[in-house]
């Protein structure tokens, strides 16, 4: 049984307008998302703005109520958990935020920020908490003395470490990292990535890493989920995703990511998508990607969203799922055997 199971998750935000604040429409931020996360693995969740990845992360942790679907953690239903059950669950499921400047209370000392989860759950005596905070600070590469200071006295990278320390305070099993490095300088990003990897090994953590930077996600994840406009379009092993992307959106996404290697860049074949990312308030009929898809055929692409299916017969033993009527197919040696009508 997977540690985290997400089944057909939906989150729709009502749009209210007019004097009487009537609901005139919905933002289909998350519209039928399913995947599972095994214990000990790192699952990456990528997509561009409006794809619903951040919302998915928050709904999984029940920081936002779901509109539909189910999330289970270690077999327990998260959506329907009672308040005391939820409190217990919260100790196992934690989150690291994107913005190191907004995710720490500027009026609290760092040691209090890190110690608060313990205070909330009534864990440990004052002395035990103090020791634990010192230990956590050291775990993330800061010193116990720095606990006396306030967040504004630290750099972005250090603040992000404090956020990680706070997430670790209750010894969680599962951490959702929402864009953990995108607000950091490049050289500091690498520090944070290494830190997260080290912590995972030492503390046996399971991660859901949400990010828009494909290079980071591919590096840190075991498997990757690609989202577009509230739906999952592809799930694959991270190495397979680069070598054998099956969904046209994934191909375009990969082709758009610049690689810091001039020769590689010059030799690359670029797929440039037309148009803008449509708004999740007004998703297209049929397959959500069809307006921008180079392989689009009126039938069936404009009729209904293709289901997320396992692509059987390829790479035995590895589960590669894609939601497309015309996914790219590969032979065992990696060459493309079937590419849909262009």
């Amino acid at each position: 049984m997977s540690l985290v199971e997400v089944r057909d998750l939906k989150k729709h935000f009502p749009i209210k307008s007019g004097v009487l604040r009537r609901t005139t429409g919905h933002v289909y931020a998350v519209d039928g998302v399913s995947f599972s996360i095994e214990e000990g693995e790192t699952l990456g969740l990528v997509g561009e703005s409006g794809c619903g990845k951040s919302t998915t992360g928050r709904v999984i942790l029940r920081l936002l109520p779901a509109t539909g679907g189910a999330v289970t953690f270690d077999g327990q239903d998260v959506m329907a958990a009672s308040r005391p059950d939820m409190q217990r669950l919260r100790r196992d499921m934690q989150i690291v935020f994107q913005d190191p400047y907004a995710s720490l209370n500027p009026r609290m000392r760092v040691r209090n920020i890190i110690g608060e989860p313990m205070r909330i759950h009534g864990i440990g005596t004052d002395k035990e908490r103090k020791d634990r905070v010192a230990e956590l600070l050291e775990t993330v590469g800061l010193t116990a003395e720095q606990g006396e200071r306030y967040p504004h006295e630290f750099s972005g990278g250090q603040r992000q470490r404090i956020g990680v320390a706070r997430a670790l305070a209750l010894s969680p099993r599962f951490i959702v990292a929402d864009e953990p490095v995108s607000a950091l300088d490049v050289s500091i990003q690498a520090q944070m990535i290494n830190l997260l990897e080290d912590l995972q090994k030492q503390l046996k953590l399971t991660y859901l890493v949400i990010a828009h930077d494909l290079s980071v996600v591919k590096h840190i994840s075991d498997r990757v989920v690609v989202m577009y406009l509230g739906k999952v379009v592809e799930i694959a092993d991270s190495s397979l995703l680069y070598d054998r992307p099956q969904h046209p959106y994934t191909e375009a996404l990969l082709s758009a990511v610049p690689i810091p290697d001039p020769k590689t860049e010059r030799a690359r074949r670029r797929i440039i998508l037309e148009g803008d990312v449509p708004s999740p308030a007004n998703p297209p009929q049929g397959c959500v990607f069809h307006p921008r898809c180079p392989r689009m055929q009126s039938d069936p692409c404009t009729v209904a969203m293709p289901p997320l299916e396992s692509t059987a017969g390829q790479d035995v033993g590895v589960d590669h799922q894609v939601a497309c009527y015309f996914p790219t197919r590969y032979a065992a040696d990696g060459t493309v055997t079937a590419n849909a009508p262009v």
Partner: protein
Amino acid sequence: MADTTSAASFEAPQLDSPLPPTAESEVPTTRPLGLWADTWRRLKRNKLALVGLGIITIFMIIGLSQVIANLLNIQLTPYDPNAVNYALTPHGIGAPPSPAHPFGTDYLGRDVLSRTIVAARISMLVGVIAVAIALVIGLSLGPVSGYYGGITDAVIMRVADVFFAFPYILFVLLIMTVLGPGFTNVFIAIGLLSWATYARLNRGSVLSVRTMEFIEAARAQGASDLRIIFRHVLPNTMAPVYVAIAMGIGGAIATEAALSFLGIGIQPPNASWGSMIANYLTYVPAGSWWMEFFPSVALVLTVFGFIAFGNGLRDATDPKLKE
């Protein structure tokens, strides 16, 4: 505050070997700054605000000492402020300032300086207590209103609107007429009417703070709404409120003076600057200016001090004000 009473055993995770200290991050080389260092530095550059602060400090010292004096029933003024002495008031219109009586004496021969000092007590009490009452109401309703939004917010803000809509003095007069004149009623009246300002100011900040990630973080840790509002939201929304407090105290003092001047505030034998200004007015045409003058100056200076400091504080806490 412990939110759950689950007696959880405390288990630290077992690290098989301690992680190597990450030499990758460094200890900052500056001294711990604290939260007010920046504000204080900016404030120091504003001369007017510093003058205001000076005035406030003097005023508070005098006021506090008089409160203590009153409680302990001792006299901390050069002369007994109520000591009538007909010898010091030839023609019944008091004696002008002299070395013995720097502010002169009033029509009953009482030392004006002493009376002015003693009246400071009233002003200070009014300022502080009235604003305190307003804060208690305003800082409970404001954060709740801003944090929950929706109907709660709408209802509370509409009620606040009602309080705003009434002309301040008129409303105070109304309350005083209902409650009757007197000491504590003045505090209640002024406090009751100013809460809306603090609530509204605070709510504005709350609206922007509540979407910040550290609030979400607290929720992710399982913090209750109460904890979030009072431990996380409120402390971060106080900046405009501090300014309003400074101005508010100044305003409360002025309002009390106005009430006493109109005769519905402080009653004899208690003296406030307002009542002194009212009582001594009739003596001015006779040439006895000093009775009216000194309490007026005291009032104006004090109110000015609060406002100047409040302004300076506002400028010093405004992050967008370029340095």
